[in-house]
Every structure is written in structure tokens, then in C-alpha cells.
């Protein structure tokens, strides 16, 4: 069923709709500046976080998030550095990185396995998720992974 609204009532509805649109734009801008995670791009710089092994040992992690200089088709590159000695052996360039409105997905290619990770934006601006190894066929040995944007880390400090 189609209802045609015309005259003064139609103007009023259009006015209300315009107000809603403006509010939405302002809200989106606010959200994207406060919680960059909700936008499709991530904050460049040094992120912190953790990497919890399936046996519950937790390791600190640093992420170096960078975008390529090309304006069109900006390409993201994330380097994950697990804070354990020797650090050079635990530095991984994340592959197949996909950033959605509230999700980050990537793969960690290690010499003996490949991990597929999916992280979801939380209310506090952090990303939390799990990684499943290609060797883990029954999904019983998941790795928990946390990414904290620099803005959230600064606020905590």
C-alpha cells in the first residue's frame, strides 16, 4: 500500500526527515571520531593487545597499523609483534586483512600453521576475537586475541 502525503503535512514530514538525516550524519561523525573501530578504517599507529594461547598463557602484543600512501585503494598493513624473546621470531605481517564497520579479519601465516582470525568491535572501542588454526580441525584449540587502538590506550593511561 502506498500513501501519498502532500501539502503541509508532506512539508512537515520532509522537515522531520531532513532533521533525522542531519542527526544521523552528526552521530556517525561523532562515533567515527570517538570509536574509530566503527568506521571502515583503523587508526594508524601502534596498537596494543594480547594473545592468549589455548593453554591460557597470555602474551602481550604490539600491532603496527599502517596504510599505504596511495589515496585511491588505500591498502592496510598490520604487523603483529608478540612480546616474547627473541622478538624477531614472533613478528608476523598479517595477511588478507579485511576491515568492516565493526569487524577485523586477517590471517597469521606461521611456518607450521595458518591462523584465521575474526575480531569484533566492543563497546569500549577494543576489538576482541578468536583465531582458529588450520591444524585445529575440531576448533578446540582457539587462540583469543585482543586489539586496543591507541586512542583507547591513551584514555586508559
Amino acid at each position: 500500500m502506498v500513501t501519498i502525503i502532500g501539502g503541509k503535512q508532506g512539508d512537515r514530514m520532509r522537515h522531520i526527515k531532513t532533521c533525522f538525516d542531519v542527526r544521523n550524519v552528526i552521530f556517525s561523525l561523532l562515533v567515527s571520531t570517538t570509536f574509530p573501530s566503527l568506521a571502515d578504517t583503523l587508526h594508524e599507529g601502534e596498537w596494543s593487545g594480547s594473545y592468549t594461547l589455548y593453554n591460557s598463557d597470555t602474551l602481550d602484543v604490539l600491532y603496527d597499523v599502517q596504510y599505504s600512501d596511495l589515496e585511491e585503494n588505500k591498502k592496510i598493513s598490520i604487523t603483529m609483534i608478540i612480546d616474547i624473546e627473541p622478538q624477531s621470531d614472533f613478528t608476523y605481517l598479517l595477511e588478507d586483512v579485511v576491515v568492516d564497520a565493526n569487524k577485523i579479519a586477517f590471517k597469521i601465516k606461521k611456518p607450521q600453521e595458518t591462523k584465521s582470525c575474526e575480531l569484533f568491535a566492543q563497546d569500549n572501542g577494543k576489538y576482541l576475537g578468536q583465531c582458529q588454526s588450520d591444524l585445529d580441525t575440531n576448533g578446540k584449540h582457539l587462540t583469543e586475541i585482543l586489539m586496543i587502538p591507541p586512542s583507547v590506550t591513551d584514555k586508559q593511561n
Partner: protein
Amino acid sequence: MEGENKKRDWIDLLFKAMTPVIAGLLIAWAGYVGNMTLTSVESKKENARLITELQINREQAESELRKDIFDQALKTLLKEDSGKGDLRSQSKRMLRLELLALNFGDSLSLSPLFTEFKNDLEQAEPVDNEDAIDHPERVAVLQKRLRSLAKKVSSSQLSSVAQHGFLINVRVPLKGFGPRVPRCGHRFYDKEVYIWPDDKVKEQLIDLKDDKDYPDLLKSMLEELGIVTVGKISRKVILTFSAVDHCAKTVLVNLEIIRIMDSKAEVIEVSREFRLDFFNFPKVDNTRLFNNHRFAIVMENFNVKDDPHILVAGVIFPAEYASLRDRPGMREALELLQSALDTEQTEVKVEE
């Protein structure tokens, strides 16, 4: 008169009658007191015997428990295939080593067990798919746990022996570390060396290098920092660090200990080179010095982040605080006796 005599007779009679009663009562009282005293003494003796027995039983039970832990832990650790197996079994092996180190670290030379475990972890390969998940990270966590255990044991031993000796703290700066830690295989102090206390004093006096008093200042500060006195014996300690391996967490150390005689003459007591890691425990791994003294050196920290440096502690202490297995030899005993006699003679002269 007659009345008085009668009264006296009564008193005599009363005395005569009461004397055996009083004597009997006194004997009974003495017997009672004697018995009470004897009972009390017996009871005290019995209590003391019971306490001693309980103490002995408790110590025996503790010794047996410790012996059981020792047997179990050592047996499993020394099993031929203990180095093989997945990382979960290595984690259990670590638990046994922790039990052994924390209970018997003061009397047992644990360095070989630590070194063997470290080598096994370096060569560990996943045994199945499950073991291959996060294998390098899990190995690194175990390696970190091994180092933490070694640090815990050595620092508790160090604080114990340092109370009775002289402690030297050395901080070797690792210059050349960038914001990112370099790859394994890169050696620090490969061509140059860090000499303690010389380099430390030179760092402190860097602003006064052109001062005319610099040589004198340098000499006096070197004497202040590098001369160690324990039990009236002064020694000069020189430590030279080189070939720092930040992945294996080792450093090559050249140790020189020079005894300064009363006549200011110098005698080299120790001159040796060794690779220092976290697996040195001062109560057990120490060097014998003159007059039944010991020298031990420990790596306390290896920091590759934020102002990279190595912290090393050296300590000279009397041998009586070393492990019990380390008894003085005949020559050392004679030297000790001679030193005691000399001290006594000096004291007698001072008194005269």
C-alpha cells in the same frame, strides 16, 4: 607451788604427746613435698622427651618427604626420553624442576639440569598437529618460565650470601639496540669490550675528562669501586664483558681477582674466562679464593627493551655460607687455621 607443778606437768605431757605427732606431720609433709618435686621433675623430663621426640619425628617425616620429592623429581627428570614428547609433557617436566630447584637448590648443583632443559626446548619439534598449534610461542613461554625459575633461585641464594660478604653490582649497557630488537645471531660487544670498573668510572667522570685532577680522581674512584674487602683481605676485581648473545641471553666474562698484600704487592688469585647465563647459582657455582672465601657471579637481568642493559652481581663471601657439599680442603683448612692464629696474635699484641 603445787598448782604450778601441776601446770608444768601438763605442759610437759602435752609436749611429749605432741612431739611424735608434729614429727610425723613434718615427715609426711616432707614426703609429700619430695614426691611432688620428683613428680614435677619427672613430668618436665617427660615433656622435654616428648617434645624432642616430636621434633625428631617431624624432621624425619620432612626429610622423608623431601627425599621422596627428590627421588621422584630427579628420576623423572633424568629419564632417557624426558627431553622428547610434546610441550605438555615438557611443562610437567618444568614443574618437577621447579620442585627440585625450590627445595634443593641450596645443596644441589642444578646448572646441568637447567642447561639440558634449555637445549631440549631449543630443539623441541611438534609431535602432532595439536602440539604444532602455537608451538614456537609455547616453547618461548617455557623458556621464559625456565629463566624466571633460575632467577628466583639465584637471587634468593645471592641475597643470603651477600649478607655475609661483599656485593658488587655491575650494569653493562647494551649500546646499539634500536627501537626494534635485532635478529638472533647479532652479537653486542663483538669487537669492543666493557670493562668493570674502568668503563663505569670513565662514564661517571666523562664531564671532567679535561680537568687536571682527572687522573687522580680516576685512580681514587677505581680504588673505591673495584677494591673489595672481606675479613681483612682486600682484593681487586676486574670483570671484562664481551660477545653478548641477546637470544641465548649469555655473555662472555673474563674474571680477574687480584689479592692486595699488606706490602701493597699484588697476587693474581683468579684469572679465567667463561660464558655467563642465568643458570649460575652462587651457593653451589662459585670459585675458591684464599682464606676460605668464595666468589660467585650471577646474571640478574637481561633487558632488551627501554634502555637495554645486563645486570650482573658478583659476591665474595666466607665459604661457611656456601653449599654444605662444598667443604674446605686440607690446604684451605690449614690456611684458615693460620689466619685465625694470626688474628689472635694481632689481638694479643693490641691488648698489650
